[in-house]
């Protein structure tokens, strides 16, 4: 089983989940329009329902293995609009309502604001990991040709020469061949920092002290490969 940041989900499972979620969502739909477009409920209550729905959509979107960025951004922006309208000073232009008790509103806003901001900030922060291994800046400076020339591989993967630039029609087959017999479950991709390119054999004690889930640096990997190649009995920590 591969360690992964995202979740690999089959399309059928996703569709089933969407169906289940839609069924769940339609339970509380009293505010759905079935007649002329008039305000049918106090806006505070309507805002809460929309707020909950939007949060649900946001979480559902982020649970996807690769979120639809447009959907995500639009839902987040809508959430912010709803949140802004729930503040006592803000009101929808077409509807007026008596402001709720200040104490309750402050608590509601404080908790929802802090929670929402924290959750949205955290969730959007996670998106930055979609791009690559790190937040490394563009490695290539401007050269004669216009624009920022970027290599065949995204910036954060510069250390991984395995990918390499696209060279032609058969690249896809070549890539799959490279990864066929490598068990990537041992590696956390974040450890592949460019600085660890030296590759020296560490003291055997270095790797033994770690008792958490398998986390290897390049030096330890080299050592492990040497051990396997020589057919020696593996140290206990690899079992």
């Amino acid at each position, binding site marked *: 089983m*591969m360690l*992964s*940041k*995202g979740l*690999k989900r089959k399309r059928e499972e996703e569709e089933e989940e969407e169906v289940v979620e*839609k069924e769940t*969502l*339609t339970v509380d739909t009293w*505010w*759905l*329009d*079935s007649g002329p*477009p008039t305000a049918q409920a106090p806006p505070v209550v309507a805002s809460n329902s*929309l707020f909950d*729905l939007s949060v649900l*959509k946001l979480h559902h979107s982020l649970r996807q*293995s*690769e979120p*639809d*960025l*447009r*959907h995500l*951004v*639009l839902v987040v*922006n*809508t959430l912010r*609009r709803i949140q802004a*309208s729930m503040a006592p000073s803000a009101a*929808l*232009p077409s509807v007026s309502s008596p402001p709720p008790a200040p104490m309750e509103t402050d608590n509601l806003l404080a908790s929802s604001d802090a929670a929402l901001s924290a959750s949205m900030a955290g969730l*959007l*922060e996670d*998106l930055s990991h*979609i*791009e*690559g*291994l790190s937040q490394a800046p563009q490695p290539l400076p*401007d050269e004669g040709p*216009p*624009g*920022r*020339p*970027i*290599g*065949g*591989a*995204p910036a954060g*993967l510069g250390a*991984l020469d395995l*990918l390499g*630039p*696209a*060279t*032609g*029609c058969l*690249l*896809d087959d070549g890539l799959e061949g490279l*990864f066929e017999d490598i068990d*990537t479950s041992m590696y956390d*991709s974040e450890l592949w920092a460019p600085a660890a390119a030296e590759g020296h054999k560490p003291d055997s004690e270095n790797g033994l002290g770690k008792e958490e889930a398998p986390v290897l640096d390049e030096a330890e990997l080299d050592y492990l490969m040497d051990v396997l190649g020589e057919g020696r009995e593996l140290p206990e920590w690899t079992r």
Partner: protein
Amino acid sequence: MGVSVLSKSMPVQENQPWVSGTPADIISTVEFNHTGELLATGDKGGRVVIFQREPESKNAPHSQGEYDVYSTFQSHEPEFDYLKSLEIEEKINKIKWLPQQNAAHSLLSTNDKTIKLWKITERDKRPEGYNLKDEEGKLKDLSTVTSLQVPVLKPMDLMVEVSPRRIFANGHTYHINSISVNSDCETYMSADDLRINLWHLAITDRSFNIVDIKPANMEDLTEVITASEFHPHHCNLFVYSSSKGSLRLCDMRAAALCDKHSKLFEEPEDPSNRSFFSEIISSVSDVKFSHSGRYMLTRDYLTVKVWDLNMEARPIETYQVHDYLRSKLCSLYESDCIFDKFECAWNGSDSVIMTGAYNNFFRMFDRNTKRDVTLEASRESSKPRAVLKPRRVCLGGKRRRDDISVDSLDFTKKILHTAWHPAENIIAIAATNNLYIFQDKVNADAH
């Protein structure tokens, strides 16, 4: 105008002939080539089907050339990104034809991550009469060869060969939504949610980033790129649209990195229509330059708009596609229909614009007469050669016999992808996994 069914075709399902309507067959893009002779469709299963217009028969001058399947090939396969443990869908997001420069045809097809250049060639002759090989290719017994002969080319059944010539990979971190070939016929651009890259058609191992709207801090992300296109005549100009409803015209001569636009086209929000969903419905799902290059056509959730390149403040024309949905935005948000991305198209003379809607309806607007029509693409109403009947959606009150009420609309039947022949009044409509081709019977040529 009388619109009749020219031909009705379904994508060839080579591997699953007993099943129609599988998710893999859903058409995801439709594109005529520059002459209109060829029509390419891409589907969710990564296949490309190319239709060719048959030459008009002299024996039956009244029957216009119909489109038949010309070639089918698997463009993209599902892939797995091992580093990120993510599946990459094989769905074809866009197809763009290259201008034809020799006997072969070329097109670009793209999924979320990889763009491919395909060359389509015809073979209708084969050499026969080799001296050393027989017709099956086996070597002859040399003792039976008593004289020399010159191999001759003999006609054979037409064979269409498709081969991948270039694969432009690893250029995009986010999902590619557009590709556009430059008028210089040497470069093209590809756009994802946050970046636009410029490629040379002959170079696959590098591309130039010309737009990057990714914020330094992803928490500040509030806007994404939704579509982009090169100007049809000026190779230095391109436009890209955003999820906030703005259009940015960029000039590649001004700077290497076109983060700063030359022109910003934006319409102020109408305060009377303001709602929580204002931003979502203003998100531009498609942008197309007119053939003249003077105008742009945009599609947002409820309208199509025509913009003059010389006026940034507001569009010069706005057409309501389905304003009756304005009161249904809540339920459309809940069902995610509000996020549907409809495309739009110009006719050859830029006088009529077209876009899809729900219930397999599509709409056409005549810019000169200001008349519009709603038509339906469905098997029941589209027998070959039949004339399509205009449809009407009623909100309530007086209802004619064939009107359909808003609440009866089927939101699962959406026409997202449409294309218009570059010169004639022939349109291609993708309705889920069916392709419909219609022609204006009254006015065969664009007026």
